[in-house]
């Protein structure tokens, strides 16, 4: 029998209540989703059952404490403007998304690669596997790249993506989001995540967002509308800072 939204809601609520109760009882706050989160059905066979094995990051020769570097050869100057990659203008609500890439000490991550991808304004991805009946936009692919500046800042001009259906259960819809891929100074800090837009009514129904069971952590995935960043008769502005965790060689050097 096909799973309904109510079936998934029950599972989501059970796991939410269990988490809230555990934290109230003194269990640690979880900043990341559990890899084992059954309401997102694709996770069931794709998460390890053995506990992760800890690697002590105190050894500076640990390869993962350093990481890949990128430079001006790896991007072009217009990669961070997703609205000028084709002959015409894409359809949709033009937006600016900007923010800072920081480590958990609040230090800017400079000169690192930020990559984004997203659906078009109709909620359709430029991908063969997305065949749902919404139009492709010949003037929008939905891929952007940039390097953070010397204060860790990034900025993209794009259009607001639409919500789209998926087949986790009957009538499943993903809230509008932009996928982000970012690197820190250490490979341990690697992060792929999704940025959401404030006030989206689909938040409570989405098992992917709800896989982050901590409300404060979920809130950190939602951008802030910033009217000062909006440009008259041109675009709306959103702000979203990204904070990386994981040890890095920089920390070890500073700790000595």
């Amino acid at each position, binding site marked *: 029998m096909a799973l309904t939204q109510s079936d998934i809601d029950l599972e989501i609520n059970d796991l939410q209540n269990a988490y809230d109760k555990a934290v109230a009882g003194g269990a640690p706050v979880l*900043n*990341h*989703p*559990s*890899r084992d989160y059954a309401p997102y059905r694709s*996770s*069931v*066979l794709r*998460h*390890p*059952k*053995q506990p992760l*094995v*800890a*690697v*002590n*990051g105190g*050894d500076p*020769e640990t*390869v993962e404490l*350093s990481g*890949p*570097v*990128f*430079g001006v*050869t*790896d991007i072009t100057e217009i*990669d961070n403007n997703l609205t000028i990659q084709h002959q015409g203008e894409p359809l949709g609500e033009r937006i600016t998304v900007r923010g800072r890439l920081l480590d*958990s000490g*609040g230090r800017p991550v400079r000169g690192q690669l930020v*990559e984004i*991808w997203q659906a078009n304004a109709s909620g359709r*991805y*430029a*991908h063969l*596997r997305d065949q749902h009946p919404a139009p492709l936009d010949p003037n929008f*692919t*939905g*891929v952007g790249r940039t390097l953070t500046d010397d204060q860790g800042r990034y900025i993209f001009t794009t259009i607001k993506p639409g919500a789209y259906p998926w087949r986790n259960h009957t009538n499943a819809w993903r809230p509008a989001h932009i*996928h982000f*891929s970012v690197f820190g100074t250490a*490979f*341990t800090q*690697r*992060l*792929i*995540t*999704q940025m959401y837009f404030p006030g989206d009514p689909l938040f409570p129904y989405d098992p*992917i967002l709800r*896989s982050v069971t*901590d409300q404060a*952590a979920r809130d*950190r*995935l939602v951008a802030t509308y910033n009217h000062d960043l909006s440009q008259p008769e041109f675009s709306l502005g959103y702000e979203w*800072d*990204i*904070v990386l*965790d994981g040890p890095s060689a920089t*920390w070890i050097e*500073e700790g000595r």
Partner: protein
Amino acid sequence: MSETLLPTPSHTVGPFYGYALPFPDGEQIAPAGHPDTITLHGYVLDGEGKPIPDALLEFWQAAPDGSLRGAPGSLRRDPVTGGHLGRNGTDFTGFGRVPTDADGHYALRTLPPGNAGLPYLSVCVFARGLLHHLFTRAYLADGADTLLDALPAERRATLIAAEGPGRTYRFDIRLQGEGETVFLEFQ
């Protein structure tokens, strides 16, 4: 150092990264035609042993001389067309990115890492269905090693790539179940 900011949560890479993250020569860390080139390859498998056709693997490693500085140019671009030029043929960036094919297979061509101790590549696994990436290591040799020595024999074996003919190394990644790969967390 005191931590002041809480991290941005991870999310799955989802099914649609294929037109955004992979890039030409992502699997060619070794400069083209380099005589020391090795091939690391294998399958990414789920809890039923089925191949995962929508996983994305990233690799980070020391250069043959042991350097961990890396170099820009993994996804060198053409400023004229916006396309990709491929790597420059001399610099060793230490970074590779490879999506699995429709059969769940990947292949990476690189040079042997010169890190201290046993040579290994750091592997970061992303996939649809995987809510938070996973780290593992592909060791190209067995021997004394702090991490390996702390593992039971059958788990240890999941981190050792098997040397095959023609400078190939086979390294399968099992996300779950029998022979589940050892995944790591860094503290």
